[in-house]
C-alpha cells in the first residue's frame, strides 16, 4: 500500500516537531496536576507545576500526520526512504542529550 511509504516521513517529522515543541513549548494543551485542570495551549504555572508533555505529544502527532499527508503525493511515486525514519530520530535523541546537558554538567 502506498500510504506505508510515508511511515518513515512520519517518524522523522514526529521527532523533529517534537524537539521543537519541547524547545519552544508548542504544547497544544497544558495540564495543572495539583488542581486537575486542563487548558488549551502552553499556559504558565498556576497552583503547582504545569505539565506540557501531553500537549507536546499531541502537537507532534498532528504535525507529523499533516506532514505525512502533504508528502504522500510525492512519496507514493518514488522508492520508500527508510533511512529518514531512523536517522532523523537518532539525531533527535542526541539533540535531546545536548539540550538537557545542564542537568548533568555543573
Amino acid at each position, binding site marked *: 500500500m502506498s500510504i*506505508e511509504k510515508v*511511515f*518513515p516521513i*512520519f*517518524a522523522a517529522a*514526529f*521527532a523533529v516537531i*517534537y*524537539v521543537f515543541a*519541547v524547545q519552544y513549548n508548542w504544547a497544544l494543551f497544558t*495540564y495543572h*496536576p*495539583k488542581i486537575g485542570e486542563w487548558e488549551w495551549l502552553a499556559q504558565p504555572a498556576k497552583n*503547582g*507545576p504545569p*505539565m506540557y*508533555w*501531553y500537549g*507536546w*505529544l499531541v502537537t*507532534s*502527532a498532528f504535525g*507529523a500526520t499533516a506532514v505525512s499527508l502533504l508528502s504522500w503525493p510525492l512519496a507514493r511515486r518514488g*522508492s*520508500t*526512504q*527508510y*533511512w529518514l*525514519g*531512523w*536517522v532523523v*530520530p*537518532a539525531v*533527535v*535523541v542526541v539533540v*535531546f*542529550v545536548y539540550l*538537557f546537558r*545542564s*542537568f*548533568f554538567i*555543573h
Partner: protein
Amino acid sequence: MINVLLIVHLLLAVVLLGGITHQAISAVWPSRNKIGIVRSYRAVTGSVYTNANIMLYLATATLGGIIYPVYRVGVRTFLENARLMAATGSFELKEQFVAVGLGLLPLYWLLWRRPPEAGGRTARLAVTLILCAIVWYGFLVGHILTNIRGLFGL
C-alpha cells in the same frame, strides 16, 4: 491506587524489555540452529514479537502518562529540593526518548510486517535497536528513581 498502577507499569515494562531485547538479538545476531540456550535465544522468529511489543509499548507509555502527575508534583519536587539534578535530568530524557519512540512505532510495524526490501534491512535493525535502547533506558531510569531513597540512603 497509584502504587498498584506503578507496579503494573513496571511489570509491563519488564515484559516489553524481554520482548524487544529478544527481537533485537534475533535481528542483530541471528542463528539458524537451536543447539544450546544462546543459539536458541538467537534463533527466534523476530517478527512474531512486533505486535506484542507495540501493544506493550503503548500500554506502558499510557500507564506512565497516567501516573506521571504524581511524579511531577511529588517526586520531582523532592529530587529538586535534594539537589539531585542528574536524577531529574535522567527522567526528563526518559520522557523525551519515550516520545520519540512513539513516533517510530508505525515504521517499526511496517519494517517487521514482511521481509525487508532494499534499504529496509538496515532500517529494521536500526529502528529495533533504537526502540530497544529507549526501553532499556526508560526501564533503568524508572527503576532507579522509584527506589532512589533506598538506593542512595536519602
